[in-house]
Each structure stands twice: as C-alpha cells, then as structure tokens.
C-alpha cells in the first residue's frame, strides 16, 4: 500500500494538504508519515515523498485565507504542531465541508470537528503540563539547558512563556525527539532544527538537584501516599528528565 511522507515542516504539511485535497479522493485513507518523527519511514517499499515547495504552500494558504479568513493560518499551524495525533484526514474533511458551511468550525456536533477540538485541547494540556514539568539544568560556566520529549510539537508555543519568565537568563530548550532547539542567548531568540543532534550532557552534576530531591521526598504526607495518583499525573514518559524521579 502506498504511503505519503512529508518532511515534518509546516511548508511540508501545507504541501501535503494541498496534494491530498487536489487528489479529491478523501475516502481512501493513505498512511501519512512525518519524516522527522519517523525517519524509518524511508525504508518503506511503496511511498511517495511530498516535496516541500514554499510557493505551493504559500498559494494554498492564500486560497484558504481568502475562503475562511486569516485565523485559518493559526489553526493550520496548530494542527501541524499536533504531529502525532493523525488528524490530517479529519482536517481535510473539515476544510472540504467548510467550503459549503462556513460556521462548521464551531459545530460541536460534527464528528471531525469534535476530533480536531479534542486534539487542540490535548495540545494545550500538553503545553500547560510542560510549563511545570520542563526542567533546566545548569551547565557549569554555561547556559541553562532543558531537554524534553513532548507528545506534540509544543516547543513553538511553549518558549514564549520561558522568555517572559527568564528574560535575562541564557537558556536552551531541546525537543529531543524532534531535534528542535530553541535558544535564548544574550536576549536573542532562535528556533531551529538540528539534524544529527548527539550531545551527551552530564545533567546530574547540578548541585541543586540533591537539594530538590530532598525537598521532594520530605514534602509528601506519608498518610496520604498514593503512587497511583502520582503516576496518573506524572506519566512515566515524562519522568526521564525530572531529577526528582531519578
């Protein structure tokens, strides 16, 4: 069975939507792979790689903006960031329906809208979770560094919070899974992909880790201990970079 692969960028995502919409056959769901999340997808036998053509993306976006207004740009970007949710097909269906019925985006009874809205909520929940669960580690004589592995690509919507919070700090946030890096050094912000990111950091050398771990242990009320509740709040997937769980 044929699969489609795009490069994991927003331009690639728009090209993908454009390609699928012009095919006009939305009933046959072809598997879609994001190369950045699934580099192994290139090993598939039958696949078609969607080229990332910036002009196609720009034109497609312009058409959609003319149809639905400028807010569609932010919506599409948000759905692009929900990269593990597999919402390309519901999104295409909604775009198709929206050509007939403009207020479909608010229609909570539509199955595809429900899917999109649920994903949107999940995205913001994930971002909110990392407002708290992102951990910075002090590199001796260097900046603070925060590696993390979110479920969705939340970094572009997450970093403004930390820029506002630490305007004078030098810090780096790394989405380890997507190899997306944000740097805030000397007040300059940059967000970029880093292919072949293989940095080994001694995160355990931070002197405040042991103090934090002590505090974390002492603050729990023994009579209330419930690891089940703790696990439901801090799933195992996010514990890798939380020193209190090491």
């Amino acid at each position, binding site marked *: 069975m044929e699969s489609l692969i795009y490069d994991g960028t927003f331009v690639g995502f728009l090209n993908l939507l454009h390609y699928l919409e012009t095919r006009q056959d939305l009933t046959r769901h072809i598997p879609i792979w994001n190369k950045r999340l699934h580099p192994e997808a290139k090993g598939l036998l039958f696949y078609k790689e969607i080229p990332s053509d910036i002009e196609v993306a720009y034109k497609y976006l312009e058409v959609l903006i003319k149809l639905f207004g400028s807010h569609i740009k932010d919506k599409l970007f948000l759905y692009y960031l929900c990269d593990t949710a597999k919402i390309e097909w519901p999104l295409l269906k909604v775009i198709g329906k929206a050509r007939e019925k403009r207020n479909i985006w608010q229609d*909570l009874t539509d199955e595809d809208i429900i899917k999109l809205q649920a994903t949107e909520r999940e995205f913001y929940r994930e971002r909110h979770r990392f407002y708290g669960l992102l951990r910075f580690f002090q590199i001796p004589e260097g900046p603070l560094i*925060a590696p993390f592995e979110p479920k969705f690509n939340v970094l572009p919507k997450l970093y403004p919070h930390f820029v506002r*919070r630490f*305007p004078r700090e030098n810090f780096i946030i790394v989405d380890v899974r997507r190899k997306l890096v944000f740097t805030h050094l000397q007040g300059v912000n940059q967000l970029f992909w880093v292919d072949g990111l293989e940095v080994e950091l001694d995160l355990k050398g931070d002197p405040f880790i042991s103090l934090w771990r002590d505090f974390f242990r*002492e*603050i729990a009320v023994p009579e209330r*201990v419930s*690891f089940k509740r703790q696990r439901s709040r801090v799933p195992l997937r996010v514990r890798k970079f939380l020193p209190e769980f090491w």
Partner: protein
Amino acid sequence: MQVIKKESSTELVLKILANSARYDNSCSSSGGRRESHPYGIGNSHLAGICHTWSADGRCVSLLKILQTNICKNNCKYCICRRDNDVPRALLQPEELAKITIEFYRRNYIEGLFLSSGIYRDPDYTMELMLRTVKILRERYLFNGYIHLKLIPGASRELVEEAFSLADRVSSNLELSTEESLRRLAPEKSLGLLMKPLEIVREIYKEKLRKAPASTQIIIGASPESDKTILSLASELYQKKIVRRVYYSAYIPVNKDKDLPAIAEPPFLREHRLYQADWLLRFYGFKLEELFGEEENLPLEMDPKLSWALRNLDFFPVELTRASFEELIRVPGIGPISAKKIIQARRFGELSEETLKKLRISLKRAKYFVTLRGKLLYRANRRTERAFLNKQLALFEDKGKESFALTGSLWKASSMMEPLWDF
C-alpha cells in the same frame, strides 16, 4: 529539644523545615497581577501550573517551607508544638532566598510558600519572613509567586507590608469554634486568628473584591459538624474576607487526651467538604440546600447527588431546553459539559450519539435528565436497578416516599416509561 546549629548543612535544615511544612494544604499558585520588574526574574500571571506531584499525589507548585519550626505555641494537633521533641531548625533569610531563586531558575517551582513557627514573638517571626521576601523582591528582583502566612498577633504595619510584597497571604483559622481552639490551641482564639485576615480585607475593601487571602480549617480534630464548618466558610466568602478556604483532614501526629483517637484520617470527609465548597462557590448552591436534616454531609455520595435525591421534584431536566444554571445542578454534569450541551444545541438536535461524541458522561446524569421528553435511563437493566436500590437504602423510608412520589409524577406527565416501579 535538638536545635540544628547554624553551621549545619543546608540539606539537613531544608529537610527538617519541609517536613514540618507538609501538613499545610494551601499550596497552589493562583496567579497574580503584580507588576513585574522589567529586568527581574519570573512572573506569576498564569495560575494552576504544577511542577511535579509528590508521592501523595498532590501537586507541588511552590517551595513550601517554614522559616523555622521552633515554636512557642503548644497547639495539641501540631507537629511543631513546643512540647514535641523533634529536631528544630531555622533557615536564614539570605539562604532561603537563594534556594528559592535557584529552584525557580531550574523551573522546579512556581514560587515560594512561606510559613513559620512562632519564634520569640509574632513580630520577630513576621520580620524574619519579611526579610526573606524583601531579599527576593528587591535584591533578586523576583517577580514570581509568593504566598506568605500571616503570623497571628503580628502588628498591623507588618501585615500591611506582607500584603504589599506577597501575591497571596493567609492565616489559618485551624478550628471553627472558639471552644475547640481553647481546648486544643490554648494560645489562640478566633479573634486573634481572624485579625490579620480582617486587616487584609480592610486594605482591599475599596476594590470591592475578595481579598487575595486564604485560610485553612482542620477537619476531625474537634467535634464540629460539616454544617458548622461550611457555615463559617460561607460567611468568609460572603464577607469577601478570603478567596479560598482549605480543609485539612486531621492526621494524628501527637498523643494527647484532648485529641480524638481515630483509626485513619478523615480524608473522604475532607473530599466531601471540598465538593460542597465548590458547589457554594461555582454552582450557585446555598448552604441550606446542601444539608437535609443531618448536620454532616453524607460520605457515601457527593453533595450534589445527595441534594438531587432530596429534590427530585427539580428533575428530570430536559437537555434540549434547560438553562446553564439548571444543567449544572444535574449530578454528573459540570460547567464544562453544560457549556458543551448549550453550544451543541445551536447546531441541531441533540441526540444520545451527539452527547457521546461530545464526551459528556451520562453515567450518573441519565437518571436525572430527559432528551426530547425521553428518559435516557432504561429501567429494566439489573445493574441500574441495583444502583437505585443502593441510593434508596441510604435515604431510608423517607427517601423512598419521595422517590415514589416523583416517580408517579413523572409517569403522569406522559413520560415514555416510568422511572421506578416499586
């Protein structure tokens, strides 16, 4: 008494003081609109950020710590009471401020929650705490969240200063009656504990809003009923003295003849009180509505379900027509589900399918609602019968009469099927 000396390691002091602070419940960051210093560190605009969850499953958002656990008071329920032989320590303001900043830079915490035992006298303790906060605000230009406990008996000037530096202040009322306080915390009185909150209220009066203050009441250390506790809370909300009342189940840490001997802490009762508190604040319930003839909330079911079973004439609620206020009174439907229902009604007819798609759980609500006149509850299902019988058993004979009456009323109004056949 073992007092940890100044030169002791920060680790040890932190452990002792965090351990002593852990029974304080009111430790959430509720956000704040404090003006930030442009070159400072941090902000407190967002509420509800949890930085981790401790082994007890509770959110850790602030560095919850005591300035010192040395205390001249002898409250019988408190781990820091004067008579207890526990290690004592004092964290110097500079040191505490430094730890706070370093924790904050690493995003371990959202801010500081600072309380203290009463060391020497209330003013001295309050000054010590204020010094910590001042170092944070003035030396480190810390814009993050600070919750400061007001020390009962501290002078008005210090309370005012604390209020100007912190995002939220609180003073624990501990117990809800004067008599209980006299018995368990002889150095305290309701007037003394309430005073700092009243000062804060006075400062905030011009704004006609609730003061950004909170308080905590211990549940189960004294014989007060839920009604007494909630009426105190309700009064505090009405007079806009506090924004939030926290309830803390009594956990026996000391032995004393005046303390109740309990097998396990009343956590479920604490939970029910929080639910009732929520109903008072966000669901438009009045205190009298939450209680039948009993003085305590039933433990077997949540207060909204209990109210619903006592007020069956209010039901069934028709989902296609009910207002937001009516919908949120249905057990199992909260403000989020109610909003979804109202929004979905604008786009066409509601159906069971739509409700499912909207992820509105009808597990409990189905007994109390109709959809275009049709009941969502199927009376012939054995499990649901069992549910109803269980609920009925809780209400003894009186409740059954009420059920029977309402059942026939619903039948009379040409419902598709009778709800209950006794």
